[in-house]
């Protein structure tokens, strides 16, 4: 546990250092582009963010698939999938935002129905749905299975969306905006900065997912512990109910007769012991089931 937190901290420091170096190189060291001028500096942010988004969905999909496979079923995988998808949605938003900011001055429009753009936008909505599905309260095991199937359905849709939008554009009309600018030459300090951007963003992803996973584990513990406490309380409640039913409640209800109380309490204890063996709290099975996981 200690090693893990150290590793996580180191990843976080490296990510921050890497991002800082990317910003420094990206803004002060690298030259402006011949055609794009200073706009080219988005190159160090936008593609790495997009890469992390796709990486995150890939990881979420793999974890969900492994969760559905009976031999590797583990609630930890479910938490990895949730953590990864959540970070993925944030980075998809960043990708769309930075792409839009880039597109406005270079293509003259905030948005174009390019296959890649449209797929990314649909991906964003798809995984928002997935996160909404995850946030539905319920038994952790049920929720994990539901989410894993949801992730599977969403991921299968990605290539279908891409191909459909691609054909749509190519059959419909040639793209109004030439995306050939994507294939620009990147060399020298720019290439290195871009590479650093990729590494830094990936580290940032690992760090965020690590923390998100840690939080999810804590939440899961809190949920199961919470159920445990609730169960104990309910048991105690049901115990006093039983005493009232057995006619001993009157003794317990009248504390003003101290002479009677110890004897009454003692009788109540034996009563509980005899009852306890056969007695089960209502709804206890469900609670116990959820707390066991």
């Amino acid at each position, binding site marked *: 546990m200690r090693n893990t937190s150290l590793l996580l901290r180191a990843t976080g420091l490296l990510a921050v250092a890497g991002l800082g170096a990317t910003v420094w190189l990206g803004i002060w060291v690298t030259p402006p582009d011949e055609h794009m001028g200073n706009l080219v500096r988005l190159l160090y942010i936008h593609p790495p963010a997009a890469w992390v988004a796709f990486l995150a969905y890939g990881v979420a999909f793999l974890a969900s698939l492994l969760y559905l496979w009976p031999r590797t079923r583990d609630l930890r995988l479910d938490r990895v999938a949730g953590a990864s998808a959540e970070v993925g949605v944030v980075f998809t938003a960043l990708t769309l935002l930075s792409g839009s900011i880039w597109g406005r001055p270079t293509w003259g429009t905030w948005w174009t129905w390019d296959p890649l753009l449209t797929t990314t936008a649909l991906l964003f909505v798809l995984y928002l749905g997935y996160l909404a*599905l995850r946030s539905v309260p319920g038994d952790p095991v049920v929720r994990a299975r539901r989410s894993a199937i949801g992730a599977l359905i969403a991921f299968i849709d990605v290539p279908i969306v891409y191909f459909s939008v691609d054909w749509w554009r190519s059959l419909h009309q040639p793209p109004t905006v030439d995306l050939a600018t994507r294939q620009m030459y990147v060399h020298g300090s720019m290439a290195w900065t871009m590479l650093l951007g990729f590494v830094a963003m990936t580290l940032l992803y690992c760090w965020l997912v690590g923390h998100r996973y840690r939080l999810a584990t804590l939440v899961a513990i809190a949920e199961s512990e919470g159920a445990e406490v609730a169960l104990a309380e309910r048991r105690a409640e049901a115990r006093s109910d039983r005493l009232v039913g057995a006619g001993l409640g009157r003794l317990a209800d009248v504390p003003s007769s101290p002479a009677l109380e110890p004897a009454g309490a003692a009788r109540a204890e034996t009563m509980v012991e005899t009852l306890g063996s056969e007695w089960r709290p209502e709804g206890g099975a469900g609670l116990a089931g959820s707390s066991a996981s």
Partner: protein
Amino acid sequence: MWRDALLVAGKDLRIELRSKVAVNQVVPFAVIVVLLFGLAIGQSVSPSGQALPGALANAGILRGAAAGLFWVAVLLSTLLAVQRSFAVESADGARDGLRLSGLDPGGIFLGKCGATMVLLVALEAVLALVAALVYDVHPAAGALLVATCILATAGLVFVGTTYGMLSSGTRVRETLLPLLFFPVGAPVLLAATKAFDAGLSGTPGAATSWIELLAVFAVAYGAVGTVAFGPLLEDG
């Protein structure tokens, strides 16, 4: 599995025959959507063609967008049909009955999908008639249109029913289902619209790849749904 599917589909269709919810509510809803599109885009256009000169351009837009508008209406109606399909199971512990019936879960899935598909294809037939009238389009390649309807509806219903099952146990199902369903259904909307465009413009050859895409979509999600339905039913 297939026998179970037939049983479940028969049950759902019988319920529809007696309750007539799809006929009385979903079909009118789809027609209203089609008319609303007409109001939004092609103002002052009447089916008889007595349009004001200024509105002629709008009539053209409406005619050009007819296929897409039709499929958006179908997409919205699919959501209602799927919700209805699971509302039937939520009352009177019907879901527990289904779980205890010993029917094959894959069969239950295919049966529920089959019943919803039958209703939706019937709805599409009515809707196509209305849309052809009010949007003033003349279908050319009938077989292509029918094939598109069946494949696209199958794909939508498979995804919708899987997601319907996924969200049916939750308290937020009314709002969750559209959020899950519409993004996944987007490629179907696109492909079906393109195939319809080809059919309406009399160039059915352009629709081949779209029909293939619809078929791949339907098969993929049919398979996922059939496999996933069992575990989801148990969870309820």
